[in-house]
Every structure is written in structure tokens, then in C-alpha cells.
């Protein structure tokens, strides 16, 4: 009875693989597109061909320039048909094809005709397409129609014009700004979405004018806003206004009542937007937070995963700065640990880890242990890092937390996960003295069975630093020496170095170490043998209990100050001669490399702040710069510099980004400033830093920038003192202060001949 079986398979295959586009091929479809040129257009057929073309584009098929142009030209012929369905497809197709400037001309007149058509759908779509493909000159031609469209009775047309305005503001801001009055009128529209779009556009037009935004927000928060989307916008603008208004200590925050009122709105998106906005207020108090947190707590038990997720993610952020405010939610959070959505579960756990108190730690650890086996590596890493912070917060609980970490270290896991655990254990060992011995032992046990060479080498290196400082270093030797037998060459070499470190630091161990190192001389790998030889010859005493000289320790285990590239160059250039190679002659500075992407010189028309001087791109050039400033000379060696972080938005008049330089006991903020106003010269530019949320930092010096002319970036610095050796966190608010001098061009008329 084979036949029925075969038939059944056929049917199933049909259903699974069937597609109206099966076997579709670009060339064939382009051929089919010839029907667009027919004098008698068949709308249905043309629509089908357009659908096929759109399908191809969607699937990632590329058209050559020639093909695209050809298709575009034939599509434009379809304007001759009056079929509504086809016209709609034509609009979508033109948008997809993104014609170039010279091609656009062909279709402009048809689109402009549609823009004034009686059919609303034509007007709306023509506006959207035209604005997408237009350039500045065409735009001024159709501006009149766009302004009319903004206040059109039909909401679809109005929205089309407003949304197009939002996009056009990026490329032709001067033109769109002229529509202010019409947009203002549209904000009063009774159609909900028109108000939303108008509000979005108006705000963007006015966003550099703080007073205007203030006025807008004030009037709308008192009036009626009709759509939830518009209300969300208003909440965001209100938050912006609150952020930028002066911090008045007396009385309630302005507009707080409005935000709090939104917590009782009908629409969930508004309630959530308001709750989130409140939690993000600058210096928010517990009293201000309470109503927002109540609402979020309610969302935690919603049946909708989206609400639970949004709530738990926001509460997670709040817990970082106001853990006490979130503790009321702990019970709801604990039930989320078993949420089907693993993102929600992980967020719940990490929040509990932040809000938990010392007594709940043990209970939490038990719950988490069960939970860990259920989730993927990426979530596990998040949890591990949260546990690390928890341990630093409650150092007395290190035992149960360390046990937890070592247990999960033993289980299955990928490299990133294991590395996160090892990093956590290392940090605990460094910061909690009582945890050192057990931590080191856990790491030793781990490397007995570790599949990742990188981690074994890292741990061995760390053992070499911390092991000798313990009360009984000898117990680690066995673990280290076993690595020399059992592992690959990289790990063996690392183990040899570690053994040598023990020998160098702990004199009583020298005899034992020498015995072990001598055995390493017979290793298969030359790096291992070389290291053993080096150590045996330099540690001194040939196995007796003697002290190793400080200079020897520095030579063997100190860091290399010289950039490797320079060393390599010098070695290549060295010619064998009487004089031996001297490492002291290798230059320590790195030549500043020009950035790979060179920005074109010259002025940008929109006045975007030019990026800061591109020559300051490497660590060593930072070092050079900082050491040339006498005020920072005694800060010591530069530990690390961050990448530049933008402090201002794009298109502001004065662009500032900051680079953070970390020293042992100091932090220096380097503010790279750019003045984008041609008629202005800024003088005495400084940054006033508000470090009220960075209690452990103390400002020591501020170095102003004398003069900042147009388009010539300069730097100003502020240095802070910080406690040495321990991790500290601080938040710094920055305000740019300067004197502005307006430059007036004075024209000198040539003397007329008498």
C-alpha cells in the first residue's frame, strides 16, 4: 500500500513549501514588468508584478543601477491608471526604489498632481513619497501645499504632512521651521494622532528654545491631550523641562503633580511612562518615588509579560540607587524568580540581590542555586555579577557567597560564564581579607579541571601574586606544580613563572622551588625550559635559603614600560656590533597615528560641532599632554584613559566631550570643546563640576581654556582627588562656563580715486 503513503507526503510537502513566489527569479520578474509600458494597463496584473518586485527587494535581492532605473521609469507610467489599488502599490514601490535626484524629476509632476487631488488617500501618500525623495529646491516649491496639508480636515493627510515634517527637519530644518504656525494649530486638533504628530514636530522645532518648550509644556499639562501617545510625549518633555530647570530646594518639584496624576491614566503606556519618568528624576526623594513604585509593583503581577518586564526592569534600575524604596516589592519579586520569561526572572533575581538585606542572603542563595540550572549562560553572567556586588556589600557573608561561586564554577558552562565567576572570586579575594585563603583554594581546585587555557593562566598568574602573601604559601605549591605535569605548554609555562614567584617572595621555599624548577629543565617545550633556566640562574643562592635582590624581582616580575612596537622596531634596526643591544635606548613614546578616517577639512553647512582634535588619539599622547601640564605633574603614572564621551547633543552651539584619565589617587577630566558659531570667540572657558553625588572625590584644580575660537577645538581640565586602591563610584554634573565675544566684521572700503 505504498501509494497512499506517498500521496500523504506530497500533501504535507505542498503545504509546508508552497509559496506563490516559488521559483521566482529576478530576471523573469523584470521581464514581466514590461507590462507597465502597455498602453492598456491591466491594474491587477501590474499590482501582482509590483508585489513580486517588492518581495524580491524584501528578500535581499539587489537591483543593479540600470535595472533599478528601468523599473523606476516603467513604474512611473502606471500613474496613467486611475485604479486606486494600483496607485497605492505604486507609492509603496517608489518609496522602496529610492530614486536618485535626476530620476525623481520624472515623477514629481504626477506626485504633485496627486498632492492636490480630491482623493484623501492620494494626497496623504503623495505627500509622504514626495517628502521622502525630495531635495531642497523641490521642497520650496511644494511648501505651500504642505502647510495646507498640516491643517487639513482629514487627519490622515495632516498626519502624513506632519510626519514628513519630522523627517525633513533633519535635512532642511530652516524650511520646516517656517511651518511653526500651522503646526501649532495642528496641536489643537481634535484628532488624537494629529495632535501626537504635531506635538512631536513642534517640540523638535522649538527644542533649542528652552523658554518655548517650557511654555508648550505648561499649557498642555493644563489642557487636554487626547491620545496616549501624545500624553507619553508630554511626559517626556515635562521630564526634560524638570531636568533643565533650576533646583529650587523649597517646595515641591514643578510639574511633579502632573506626572503623579498620569499614574492614574487609563492607558497602561501612559501610567508606565509616568512611573518611569518619576524614577528617573534627578535626586528623586523616597516620598516622590512611592506612588510610582506602587504602580510598578502592581504591574509585577500582571498577566502580560510586557508589563511585568517593563516594571521589573525599571525597579531594577531604581534598586541601584534607592534599594530601600524597592523592598516593599520583594515578595512579588520572589514569585517572579520562576517566571516563564527568563529575562524577567533574571531581572527579578538581580533586583533582589540589590535590595536584599544581610539576613535574606542565605535564603536568596538557596533560591538562586535552583534557578541557575534553568537559565542560559548570558543570564547566569548577569546573576554572577550581581552576586559579586552583593558580597562586597555584605562582606561578612562571604562564606556562603564564596561557596555558591565555587559550586557553580564546578558545573557546566561556557568560557564567558566561567570567566565571570573567576573574576568575581578574584575581586572577593582582593577586597575581603578573610576570604583570601578559601578563595585561593577554590581557584586551585578549579584549575585542576579547567578546560580554558586562558583562565588557567590567569589564575596561575594571580596565585603568584597573592599566594606568597598568605600565612602558609606552601600548600599552593602542589597545585601549581601539578600543572607543570599535566597541562599544555602555555599553562605549563605560566606554572613555571608562578613557582618562581613563590621562590622569589618566600625565601624559605627556595630549596623546594629549586628542586621543582630543575625538573622543568627537561620539559618538551622550549619556552618552559627557557623560563626554568632563567629563574634558576637569577633567583640566587642555588637552592639555599637566601633573599632574592629587589632589582632581580623587578627584572623578573616587573612590568615592561616600553611599548612593544617600539621594542620590535629597535630590535629590527639593531645591527650586530661591539656594542650590545641596550633596552634603555628604546624610545618610550608612541608616534601619534593619524586616525584611519580623516574628516574632510572645511566647514560643515549645518554647523555640526567638529570632532575634537584627532591627533589626541592614543594613550601615550594623552600621557604626554597631561605630563606637560605642571598642575598634574605629581599625579604619577597615568593608569587608564577612557574613550571620549559626548556630553552635548548633536547640533548644539558648543560641543563638548569628556575623556576620563585615571591616576592612582586622582582623576582628571579632559573636556574637549568645540565652538561652532563663526561669529563668536569664547574666552576663559571652564567647566564647573557639581560633585555632590560623588562624595569621595575632592576637586583639586581646574585648568581653564584661555581662548576658544570658531571651529578650533581646545581642552579644559578639572582634576579630582580620590581615595587610592578601592573602587569608588561618583556622578558628576558638568556646566560649561565662558565669556562670549561677538566678532563683528568691519568692511574697509577702498579709497575712491579723487
Amino acid at each position, binding site marked *: 500500500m505504498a501509494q497512499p503513503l506517498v500521496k500523504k507526503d506530497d500533501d504535507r510537502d505542498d503545504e509546508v513549501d508552497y509559496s506563490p513566489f516559488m521559483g521566482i527569479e529576478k530576471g523573469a520578474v523584470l521581464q514581466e514588468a514590461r507590462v507597465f509600458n502597455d498602453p492598456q494597463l491591466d491594474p491587477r496584473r501590474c499590482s501582482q508584478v509590483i508585489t513580486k518586485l517588492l518581495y524580491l527587494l524584501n528578500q535581499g535581492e539587489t537591483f543593479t543601477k540600470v535595472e533599478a532605473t528601468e523599473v523606476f521609469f516603467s513604474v512611473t507610467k502606471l500613474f496613467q491608471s486611475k485604479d486606486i489599488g494600483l496607485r497605492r502599490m505604486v*507609492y509603496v514601490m517608489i518609496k522602496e526604489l529610492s530614486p536618485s535626484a535626476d530620476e525623481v524629476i520624472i515623477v514629481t509632476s504626477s506626485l504633485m498632481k496627486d498632492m492636490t487631488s480630491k482623493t484623501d488617500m492620494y494626497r496623504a501618500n503623495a505627500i509622504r513619497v514626495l517628502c521622502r525623495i525630495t531635495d531642497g529646491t523641490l521642497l520650496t516649491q511644494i511648501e505651500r501645499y504642505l502647510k495646507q496639508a498640516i491643517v487639513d480636515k482629514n487627519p490622515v493627510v495632516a498626519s502624513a504632512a506632519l510626519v514628513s515634517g*519630522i523627517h525633513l527637519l533633519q535635512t532642511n530644518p530652516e524650511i520646516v521651521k517656517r511651518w511653526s504656525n500651522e503646526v501649532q494649530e495642528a496641536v489643537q486638533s481634535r484628532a488624537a*494622532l494629529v495632535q501626537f504628530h504635531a506635538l512631536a514636530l513642534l517640540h523638535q522645532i522649538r527644542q533649542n528654545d528652552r523658554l518655548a518648550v517650557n511654555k508648550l509644556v505648561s499649557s498642555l499639562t493644563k489642557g487636554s491631550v487626547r491620545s496616549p501617545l501624545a500624553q507619553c*510625549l508630554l511626559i517626556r518633555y515635562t521630564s526634560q523641562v524638570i531636568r533643565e530647570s533650576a533646583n529650587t530646594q523649597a517646595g515641591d518639584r514643578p510639574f511633579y503633580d502632573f506626572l503623579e496624576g498620569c499614574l492614574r491614566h487609563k492607558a497602561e*503606556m501612559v501610567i508606565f511612562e509616568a512611573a518611569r519618568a518619576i524614577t528617573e528624576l534627578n535626586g528623586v526623594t523616597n516620598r516622590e518615588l512611592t506612588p510610582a513604585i506602587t504602580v510598578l509593583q502592581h504591574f509585577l503581577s500582571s*498577566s502580560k509579560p510586557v508589563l511585568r518586564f517593563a516594571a521589573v526592569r525599571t525597579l531594577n534600575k531604581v534598586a541601584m540607587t534607592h534599594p530601600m524604596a524597592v523592598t516593599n516589592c520583594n515578595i512579588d519579586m520572589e514569585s517572579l524568580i520562576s517566571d516563564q*520569561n527568563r529575562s524577567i526572572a533574571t531581572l527579578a533575581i538581580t533586583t533582589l540581590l540589590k535590595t536584599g538585606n544581610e539576613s535574606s542572603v542565605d535564603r536568596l542563595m538557596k533560591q538562586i542555586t535552583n534557578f541557575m540550572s534553568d537559565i542560559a549562560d548570558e543570564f547566569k553572567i548577569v546573576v554572577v555579577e550581581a552576586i559579586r556586588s552583593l558580597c562586597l556589600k555584605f562582606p561578612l557573608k562571604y562564606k556562603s557567597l564564596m561557596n555558591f561561586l565555587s559550586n557553580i564554577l564546578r558545573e557546566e558552562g561556557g568560557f564567558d560564564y566561567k570567566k565571570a565567576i573567576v573574576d568575581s572570586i578574584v575581586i572577593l579575594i582582593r577586597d575581603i581579607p578573610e576570604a583570601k585563603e578559601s578563595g585561593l583554594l577554590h581557584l586551585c581546585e578549579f584549575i585542576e579541571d579547567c578546560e580554558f587555557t586562558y583562565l588557567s593562566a590567569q589564575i596561575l598568574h594571580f596565585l603568584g601574586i597573592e599566594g606568597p602573601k598568605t600565612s602558609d604559601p606552601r600548600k599552593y605549591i602542589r597545585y601549581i606544580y601539578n600543572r607543570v605535569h599535566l597541562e599544555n605548554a602555555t599553562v605549563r609555562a605560566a606554572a613555571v613563572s608562578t613557582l618562581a614567584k613563590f621562590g622569589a617572595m618566600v625565601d624559605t621555599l627556595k630549596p623546594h622551588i629549586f628542586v621543582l624548577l630543575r625538573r622543568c629543565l627537561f620539559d618538551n617545550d622550549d619556552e618552559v625550559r627557557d623560563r626554568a633556566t632563567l629563574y634558576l640562574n637569577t633567583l640566587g643562592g642555588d637552592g639555599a635559603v637566601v633573599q632574592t635582590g629587589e632589582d632581580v624581582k623587578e627584572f623578573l616580575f616587573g612590568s615592561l614600560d616600553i611599548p612593544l612596537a617600539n621594542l620590535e622596531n629597535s630590535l629590527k634596526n639593531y645591527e650586530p656590533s661591539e656594542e650590545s643591544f641596550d633596552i634603555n635606548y628604546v624610545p618610550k613614546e608612541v608616534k601619534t597615528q593619524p586616525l584611519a578616517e580623516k574628516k574632510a577639512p572645511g566647514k560643515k553647512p549645518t554647523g555640526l560641532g567638529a570632532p575634537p582634535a584627532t591627533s589626541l588619539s592614543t594613550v601615550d599622547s594623552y600621557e604626554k599632554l597631561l605630563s606637560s601640564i605642571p598642575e598634574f605633574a605629581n599625579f604619577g603614572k597615568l593608569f587608564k584613559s577612557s574613550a571620549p564621551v559626548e556630553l552635548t547633543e548633536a547640533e548644539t552651539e558648543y560641543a563638548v566631550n569628556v575623556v576620563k584619565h585615571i591616576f592612582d589617587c586622582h582623576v582628571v577630566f579632559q573636556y574637549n570643546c568645540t565652538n561652532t558659531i563663526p561669529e563668536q570667540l569664547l574666552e576663559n572657558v571652564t567647566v564647573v563640576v557639581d560633585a555632590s553625588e560623588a562624595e569621595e572625590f575632592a576637586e583639586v584644580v581646574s585648568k581653564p581654556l584661555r581662548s576658544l575660537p570658531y571651529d578650533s577645538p581646545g581642552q579644559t581640565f578639572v582634576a579630582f582627588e580620590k581615595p587610592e586602591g578601592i573602587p569608588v563610584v561618583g556622578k558628576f554634573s558638568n556646566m560649561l562656563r565662558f565669556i562670549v565675544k561677538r566678532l563683528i566684521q568691519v568692511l574697509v572700503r577702498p579709497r575712491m580715486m579723487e
Partner: protein
Amino acid sequence: MELCPSIKNILLLDSEGKLIAVKYYSNDWPTNSAKETFERAVFTKTQKTNARTEAEITMFDNYVVVYKFVQNLHFFVTGGENENEIILATVLQGFFDAVGLLLRGNEDKKEALENLDLILLCLHEIVDGGVILETDANVIAGKVDNHNMDAGAPLSEQTITQALATAREHLTRSLLQ
């Protein structure tokens, strides 16, 4: 611009992760291969979850993705990591329900492909360049389909005859499976 809610992409994939219709509204995925990688990643990450009764949500790569499945259709809407998740879910629901209306309840891949033009028009009416145009499914479907219907008969109110026809179709399909 950052304050206006913005949609980064809308995807409609099948139950094997192959795309049916997608629309990208941001430059975060400039090449075809970047897009394919994203689609594959988002599909794999959500494959084993059950997003059929309620819209589900996940985060990766600094994007928030809300999604919902029906039959062998997988709907996704992506936003930036600080976007209001509920706004994204509203857009998703609008798209999801509008497609349901346009496909007259036959929400599966075959039907979707046969009505790809409707789905593309649907996307065209929901978001323009990242800005939300419309979230009400009835309005969206109405705009897309008004040239197919007789005047004044919105999709959601079918005549008795039409309703019976749809029901018969459903019954036949389920018997054949």
C-alpha cells in the same frame, strides 16, 4: 529626535525563521547580511518560548523586542533599549490584529504570501520612517483594504453570508489537516 518614540524594525517571519515581510526603519543594520544575522538571532532566541496567548518580550544587543506568534507566523517589533516597552507592544498588537483582519482569520504563511501586497501596505500604514502612524488595527486594515471592499462594509462586520463562508472554510481546513 530621541524623545519621540521610534520603531527600529518590524518583522514577519515564518516558523522556520525565514522572512515573509520585513521593514527596517533605522541604520543599525546597513547591509543585507547584518539584517539576516539579526533576523536569525531574534528568531532563535524566541523560538522556544510560547508567545501565542500574550505578547512576549526580550532584550538583546541593546534592543527591546516584543513578539507574538500565531500558527506559523512570527511577528516582531524592535525598539531601542530605552523605549517604552508598552508602546512597542501596542504597535505589535496593531500590526498583529490588522494582519488577522486582512487575512480574514486565516493567519498562516500560505495565506500571508498570497496576500503579501496587503501585508506590505499594512506596514506602510503603521510606521513611517520609524515614527508611529497608526496603532488601531481596524483603522489600519480599513486603510489597506478599502479598495477591495464594497463601500461601507468594514472588515470587522461581515454579512451573514460572508461569515458563513469563512466558517465553512475554516471547518474544511481543519478536517483536511
